[in-house]
């Protein structure tokens, strides 16, 4: 009797990784899933914060996919290790601060380490030749195999017929004839395959899964690095970039202003780490001040926060500022008009 072969499938929660795992599973291979948490995963973070969305929490698609497949899912926190990928990607960034090729290499390398530790035989990804401009091109796919160290233990079932033979195919662990030769950006073959497996409800195909592909998010991260004079971040930094309006009136400070109650509640959790402002005379947002503002900067910040309160058309808005020592101070200011806020302050 032949040995039961085991594969680990990279599960993002999207359609391609669902199908790739299913194709290999259908050939009798025991599949488990692995999902990496970088901190930049889009999933449901903004959804979980905003009050209007909290009543209907978003599902975690990687867990959902694993459940559809009936496989175990290992979720791995790579937040710290991933920083090296974001700070200095060997293959550069994409359109924004997305280091897609280095990211893929890193994740496949982690999966390779995992199969060596756990005694699994090979790695499965949902990559398709020509589907992504950076990480899924004919010339970059061998780079992922080589630089991750996985070499011919990396199987891409959806486009395997367009690629050189891998060890799972050569050894007969999977039948190459039952793999696929998808290529390009069209999603029709995947949708057809999903139908043939009976999958009707899956995450929107080809959706970005990383905040670093988002131009606005990347601009905020680049601003953070500029302001601090170094490429670095902590988990709290990258979470806060997902929340509120970010305005930088000067190089030495910026404001994070909540846009609705859920964001205000979320920012409340950071009050002890930041100087913060709250309106008293009118309903309004909570604002955190990041940086090292001068006294005139604080007055300007108060006028700016007043602008986003329900007192924006009043002559005077009262606010309370709390400094890092927990000391309170009151301001009574005239809100800035829309015209007094330069567009370049908005990050």
């Amino acid at each position, binding site marked *: 009797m032949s040995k039961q072969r085991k594969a680990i499938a990279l599960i993002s929660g999207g359609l391609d990784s669902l199908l790739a795992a299913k194709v290999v599973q259908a050939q009798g291979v025991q599949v488990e899933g692995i*999902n990496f*948490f970088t901190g930049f*995963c889009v*999933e*449901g*973070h903004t*959804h*979980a*914060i905003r009050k209007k969305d*909290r009543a209907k*929490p*978003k*599902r*975690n698609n*990687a*867990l*959902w996919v*694993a*459940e559809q497949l*009936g*496989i*175990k*899912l*290992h*979720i*791995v*926190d790579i937040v710290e290790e991933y920083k090296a990928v974001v700070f200095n990607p060997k293959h550069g960034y994409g359109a924004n601060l997305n280091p897609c090729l280095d990211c893929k290499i890193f994740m496949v390398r982690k999966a390779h380490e995992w199969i060596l530790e756990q005694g699994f035989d090979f790695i499965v990804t949902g990559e398709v030749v020509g589907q992504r401009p950076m990480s899924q091109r004919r010339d970059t796919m061998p780079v992922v195999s080589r630089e991750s160290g996985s070499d011919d233990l990396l199987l891409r079932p959806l486009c395997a017929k367009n690629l050189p033979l891998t060890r799972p195919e050569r050894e007969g662990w999977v039948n190459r004839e039952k793999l696929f030769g998808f290529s390009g950006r069209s999603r029709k073959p995947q949708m057809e395959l999903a139908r043939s497996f009976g999958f009707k409800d899956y995450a929107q195909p080809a959706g970005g899964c990383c905040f670093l592909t988002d131009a606005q998010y990347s601009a905020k991260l680049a601003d953070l690095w500029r302001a601090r004079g170094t490429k670095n971040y902590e988990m709290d930094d990258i*979470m806060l970039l997902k929340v509120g309006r970010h305005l930088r009136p000067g190089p030495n400070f910026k404001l994070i202003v909540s846009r609705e109650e859920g964001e205000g*509640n979320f920012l409340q*959790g950071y009050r002890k780490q930041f100087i913060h402002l709250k309106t008293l005379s009118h309903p309004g947002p909570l604002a955190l001040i990041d940086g090292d503002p001068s006294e005139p900067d604080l007055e300007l910040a108060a006028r700016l926060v007043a602008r986003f309160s329900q007192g924006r058309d009043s002559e005077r808005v009262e606010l309370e500022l709390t400094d890092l020592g927990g000391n309170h101070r009151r301001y009574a200011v005239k809100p800035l008009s829309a015209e007094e806020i330069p567009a370049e302050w908005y990050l």
Partner: protein
Amino acid sequence: MNRVIIDARRLLCPMPVILVQNRVAELRPGTLVEAVCTDPGALNDIPAWCRINGHKVRETRSQGDEHIVVLEVGEE
């Protein structure tokens, strides 16, 4: 029976799931684990993680802004 309490307040998914996953890996079958979360998504995600990994959800409840999932560690 003693419970292992996991404080996942202020963390957004999947961090509560990761905390539960890593703690459960160290525990014996039958141990009760209570995860206290503020992300309401945990009420879906931790039970989903339990279903695919063979653990039993004993209770889910919300108290104000806190969402609590009690699970029993299953046999590996």
